[in-house]
């Protein structure tokens, strides 16, 4: 649906209600694919009718009513189709449309259960992301396609295949058992984090018509946080997103090139987001259990708290990366650990750590390793070696803003030397 004629408040309302309406519809009819289509149609109906007739007194009841009516029509159509094909129909449930705007089975956990379904490990990340944005985020296929710069037909197919996988793997519409829940929650958080990163790292010229994926990821994570306020990982992820997103406007220059932390105009940082993120980090860190998102959020918090780059508390950041590295075998964490080491013990110490990473096949020869080494060589007073590595990194990255940044860094250094 395009919400051009709906004001922001109504659009927000529709998106917030989307998973609740789908949950209620799924309680009545088990067919996930058809229910999801019915809800999408109800949202589109709202987007066209509400601006004309006004927002109904009970918008959720209105949407559920429309979605259930669509489902009833669908089931009737299915029954007559099967009759025509002379197939036994005993297994088709007889459904009666509600006479009034009843509110069947509204459960605040529906959003959570839907997220567990859409982020099921049986789905690929790309499918889980698309399905989550549509079924839980209430975005249209066209909007999702636009955000990922693929044709609408491609995205429609991806979503429909994702729904088929859910059907065929017979994931029930119910809360996973306690044992399974933690693991499934971490899949959900991973998908939300991927959505956030997709929005955050693609702030290039091509973003002219992008739906704001970072904001959508933050909104969904906020919803999960409201449902599970005591979960430290969820709190940590929300904090990480807010503390990272707070720097968004300062992060790219007029040519879409990346601006590194030490050169960002900190007056452009979003103070409100930082304040909220800091409070969340404090809650998450005092909960006792320490996870990756909390640690990353704590590191982001230390960056955001420094009034000037020179005042960054690198000693504490290094300590946090040490803990993080023990917890997660991640090449990116290892790289950041080397950078923090360089900030505390000097560029030579950082370069020494990078040597060990040459053996890691996930990193060896990648633009990331080349770029970090170039930075440290620049700081160590070896401009020629740094220039060569900046250019080598630029030739390997597939991100335009990153390539532009690396090329300009090399050019600046080559003019100065």
């Amino acid at each position, binding site marked *: 649906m395009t919400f051009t004629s709906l004001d922001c408040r109504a659009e927000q309302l529709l998106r917030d209600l989307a998973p609740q309406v789908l949950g209620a519809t799924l309680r009545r009819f088990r067919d996930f694919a058809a229910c999801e289509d019915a809800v999408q149609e109800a949202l589109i109906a709202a987007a066209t009718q509400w601006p004309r007739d006004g927002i109904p007194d009970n918008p959720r009841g209105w949407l559920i009513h429309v979605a259930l009516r669509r489902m009833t029509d669908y089931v009737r159509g299915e029954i007559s189709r099967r009759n025509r094909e002379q197939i036994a129909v005993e297994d088709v449930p007889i459904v009666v449309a509600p006479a009034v705007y009843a509110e069947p089975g509204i459960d605040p956990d529906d959003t959570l259960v839907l997220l567990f379904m859409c982020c099921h490990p049986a789905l690929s990340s790309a499918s889980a992301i698309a399905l989550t944005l549509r079924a839980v985020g209430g975005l249209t296929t066209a909007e999702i396609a636009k955000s990922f710069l693929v044709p609408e037909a491609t995205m429609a197919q991806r979503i429909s295949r994702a729904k088929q996988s859910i059907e065929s793997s017979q994931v029930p519409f119910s809360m996973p058992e306690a044992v399974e829940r933690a693991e499934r929650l971490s899949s959900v958080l991973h998908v939300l984090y991927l959505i956030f990163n997709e929005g955050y790292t693609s702030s290039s*010229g091509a973003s002219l018509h992008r739906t704001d994926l970072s904001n959508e990821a933050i909104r969904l994570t906020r919803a999960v946080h409201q449902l599970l306020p005591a979960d430290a990982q969820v709190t940590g992820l929300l904090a990480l997103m807010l503390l990272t997103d707070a720097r968004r406007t300062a992060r790219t220059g007029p040519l879409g090139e990346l601006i590194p932390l030490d050169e960002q105009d900190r007056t452009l940082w979003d103070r409100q987001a930082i304040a909220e993120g800091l409070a969340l980090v404090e809650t998450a860190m005092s909960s006792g259990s320490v996870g990756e998102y909390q640690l990353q959020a704590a590191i982001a918090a230390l960056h955001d708290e420094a009034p000037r780059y020179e005042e960054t508390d690198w000693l504490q950041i290094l300590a946090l990366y040490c803990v993080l590295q023990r917890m997660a075998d991640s090449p990116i964490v290892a790289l950041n650990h080397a950078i923090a080491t360089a900030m505390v013990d000097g560029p030579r110490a950082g370069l020494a750590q990078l040597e060990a990473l040459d053996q890691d096949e996930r990193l060896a020869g990648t633009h990331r390793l080349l770029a970090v080494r170039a930075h440290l060589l620049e700081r160590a007073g070896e401009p020629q070696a740094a220039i060569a590595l900046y*250019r080598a990194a630029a030739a390997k990255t*597939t991100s335009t803003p990153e390539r*532009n940044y690396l090329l*300009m860094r090399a*050019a*600046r250094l080559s003019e100065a030397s």
Partner: protein
Amino acid sequence: MKYMLMMNCPRDGYDQFTSWPKKDIEAHIAFMISFSKKLHGTGEWVDGQGLDAPTQAKVVRAGKDGKPITDGVFPEFKEYLAGYWIVEVDSPQRAYEIAAEASAAPGPGGAPFNMAIEVRQVMSGPPETK
């Protein structure tokens, strides 16, 4: 009618570009951004992409078992595709005009770089697969 405008660069074009002075790189990027905005503004933009550095290029063929056989890098290639635009225009002349504008993107010292832009009409395709 749709046209594909292909920006072909000589083999050492990428290395040349990366060693330009900073202000020349900036001017070139700024030109490409405003060029793209302009095509969006006139409603002629269909698609446009920059491709990664030619040092990453691979040529793929199917082997006897149908599995991919990759080959690369190719120092013998005289030129390579650096990026392309697809535009929807009313006449071939308009496509040539747009290509000439892209060709005049600033190069070293801000002078027009006059890159060769290959212009090809996109044929009308088979019916959309549903």
